[in-house]
């Protein structure tokens, strides 16, 4: 029954004044399911860590960073080009299906346009430090007078109240402040070896989309909007519930867990042939342990009295993991993965980006999609993380350029006259680029000749 239904959020219009990773991820997911998302972004100052408009790297530095495995601010062919803010991977990974209007809410003209926009949208999403929204005078109390149906999602790092209210941080700082960084460390190492994770941004993305859509459903019944406060820290805390309860019920402070599991062993990653090749293996039952030993050809482990039961294996997991590592080391990673799965062992290769993008499973399900940005080129992008059997869905439009939809939004949606619009452009308030004064083109190669 391959009938096709409309996308669920068709007809919902959303404005975003979001920065960095978490806020734009919420709108990414809402846009994927049909919402018309308008990104409100200034051209009169650079939003830090958002489009990568600040501290633009030269071609050489960009290439060096990518080569050393740092991809936080990468460009196509490592070339920042003349408009690096339209070429940044961190931005372009979320900005498909969106529209962009240039508007600085801190300036009077921008505020006027923004308030007109608020009349036309169902939802406003922001993830700034609370004081920024207060200074801009666009708190929910103000905006609901203009649009009582407005749903406003606020995503501060730690909350609209409390001692950490205006603390600034990224996902990795939030993961520290809620106990995740500590929990996921090497059991025999220190947190500076753990690296930085942005789990908070990923969780906030889906939680924010859930919150907004739930409020839309409620509004359908009540006719009025509401404010949703969703601190990144508090959207993440429930994901650590069992560790928190272990403290409040038993007084046990969780130690760094690394790849260990509470009850199961082996439960870790094991080396295979080649450089930095690993496979995760997770054995729960005696039957699975038998299957593991069969595939690895290690009858001696099966016979070892230390490894006879799940409890015993957990008790002796140090020597067990060492023995399994010895056995996996000579395997070709992919062979071992499929052999173990065929034998009924829960196993999964540790895949980098290249391996993920060649995953037969993801390719079969059409997860990755190609998009073409004019002047930037055609590239493959991660797609939509959920499938609906009767609502086929694809990425619709490429990552949005700075101010790409200025005209249609100001004139068609907000009702500015051509003269008013032209005046905003002339005064440098609306446009599609940052000025030379604001962003000196230091990364461009010196003109030859």
């Amino acid at each position: 029954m391959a009938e096709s239904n409309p996308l669920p959020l068709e007809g919902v219009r959303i404005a975003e004044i979001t920065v960095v990773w978490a806020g734009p991820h919420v709108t990414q997911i809402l846009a994927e399911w049909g919402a018309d998302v308008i990104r409100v972004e200034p051209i009169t100052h650079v939003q830090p860590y958002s489009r990568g408009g600040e501290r633009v790297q030269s071609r050489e530095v960009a290439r060096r960073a990518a080569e050393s495995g740092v991809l936080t601010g990468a460009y196509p062919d490592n070339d920042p080009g003349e408009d690096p803010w339209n070429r940044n991977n961190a931005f372009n990974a979320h900005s498909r299906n969106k529209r962009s209007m240039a508007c600085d809410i801190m300036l009077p003209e921008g505020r006027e346009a923004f308030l007109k926009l608020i009349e036309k949208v169902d939802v406003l999403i922001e993830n700034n430090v609370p004081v920024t929204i207060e200074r801009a005078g666009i708190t929910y109390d103000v905006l609901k007078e203009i649009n009582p149906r407005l749903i406003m999602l606020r995503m501060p790092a730690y909350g609209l109240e409390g001692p950490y209210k205006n603390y600034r941080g990224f996902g990795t700082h939030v993961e520290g402040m809620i106990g995740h960084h500590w929990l996921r460390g090497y059991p025999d190492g220190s947190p500076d070896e753990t690296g930085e994770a942005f789990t908070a941004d990923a969780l906030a993305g889906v939680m924010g989309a859930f919150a907004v859509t739930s409020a839309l459903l409620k509004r359908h019944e009540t006719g009025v909007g509401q404010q949703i406060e969703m601190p990144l820290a508090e959207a993440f805390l429930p994901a650590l519930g069992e560790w928190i309860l272990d403290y409040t019920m038993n007084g046990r402070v969780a130690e760094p867990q690394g790849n260990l599991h509470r009850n199961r062993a082996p439960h870790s990653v094991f080396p295979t042939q080649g450089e930095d090749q690993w496979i995760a293996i997770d054995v729960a039952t005696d039957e699975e342990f038998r299957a593991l030993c069969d595939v690895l050809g290690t009858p001696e482990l099966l016979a070892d009295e230390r490894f006879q039961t799940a409890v015993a294996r957990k008790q002796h997991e140090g020597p067990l993991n060492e023995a399994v590592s010895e056995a996996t080391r000579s395997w070709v990673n992919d062979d071992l993965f499929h052999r173990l799965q065929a034998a009924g062992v829960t196993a999964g290769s540790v895949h980098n980006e290249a391996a993920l993008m060649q995953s037969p499973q993801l390719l079969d399900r059409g997860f990755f999609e190609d998009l073409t940005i004019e002047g930037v080129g055609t590239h493959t992008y991660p797609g939509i993380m959920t499938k609906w059997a009767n609502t086929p869905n694809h990425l619709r439009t490429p990552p949005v350029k700075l101010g790409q939809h200025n005209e249609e939004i100001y004139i068609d949606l907000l009702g500015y006259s051509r003269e008013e619009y032209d005046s905003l452009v002339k005064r440098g308030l609306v446009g599609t680029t940052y000025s030379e004064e604001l962003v000196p083109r230091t990364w461009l190669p010196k003109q030859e000749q």
Partner: protein
Amino acid sequence: MAQLFDGLKVLELAGHAAGPFAGKLFADYGADVIKVEPPEGDTARHEGPFKDDIPDPETSALFLHLNTHKKSVTLDVTTEEGRKILRRLIDQADIVLESYRPGQLAEWGLSYDELSKDHPDLVLASITPFGQSGPWRDYRGSEITLQALGGPMHLNGSAYREPLKSGGYVAQYHCGIATAYACVAARFRVAMGGKGDHIDQAIYEAQAGFRDRRTVYTTGYSYTGFVAKRQPPGSRVAMGPRPTADGYANIYAGGTKHFFAALDLIGRPDLKEHPDATKNIVAYGEEFAAEAEGSWMAWLIQRDKRTAVAETQEIGLLGGAILTTEDLITDEHYRSRGVWDTVEHPKAGTYEGPGRPLILSGTPRQAPQRAPLLGEHNAEVYGALGLSDDLERLRSEGVI
């Protein structure tokens, strides 16, 4: 008080963490969630950590946390009578969450096409490791293996050591939220006059779409042809996790726009004059890097982690302390915000747990309510189906 999901009926056939977390989000905000457990109970009941470390299906913290505000019934769906009862429960639901292996429901005659024939509003969400289709559809998956295949695991940890998984069950929790979002979106379409749907949520695909580096770096790979790699500890000058007097803090000073303010703060204003001071952090020379890093470390080690963060927040640095669960529960910020729910449970006693992820101005969340005992609501739920007279028989035949 009006709740976000007043009147919404959710049937939870899903076990362990992902599906139950989706169910919890609905239940905590007012939906009527019936959890159907096998006679021995959800696997989360057997996992722990247990109250006083004594295994008991009623005191597993994982279960207690994930199943607040729900009703529990037991049902052996491997029996034909069990499946007949299941069908009746499904027919009354707006949303069904299930985590059987792909194809299981269809084998029982309970495919989405069948279930939705007279119930086009139905939203059925199937949560599996790899999804309902594809060559790996029947492969086994678990938290660590799905993080390995789908998520950013290859980037967690040190360049000199093995990759590390993210904490606890974050892949499953994340997948649960993604599922809850899809279900609400489908219900929104129903409210607007459209139809329900069969949602196919793979934990693997949720990991592939994970904003924690995964989507950013696959785009980066697609742009540059280079893969991301685990980095050596401390490779960025005065930036990232470092020891403090009482633990660790992760503060960004080096290379940021507030670096000069940081040099003032740590008593090294002289370094601002150094020719490297204005360079990109990756371009610092060895001598400058050693001076800045040494002074930064020395400053940090004289302070408690939260003090170091407070002082550096004052000058605009991004940062956070690396807290343990004990630090977290006793932290003044979270306590002052009322983050912790106090829950009373007949077997696990009184304990605190993380409360709301969302604070809603129009529909404030109801008071906390403990997770149900196994089959606690059999009489109520089956009674409502008109099965009161059959309860004894069903019990003795092991159906419930």
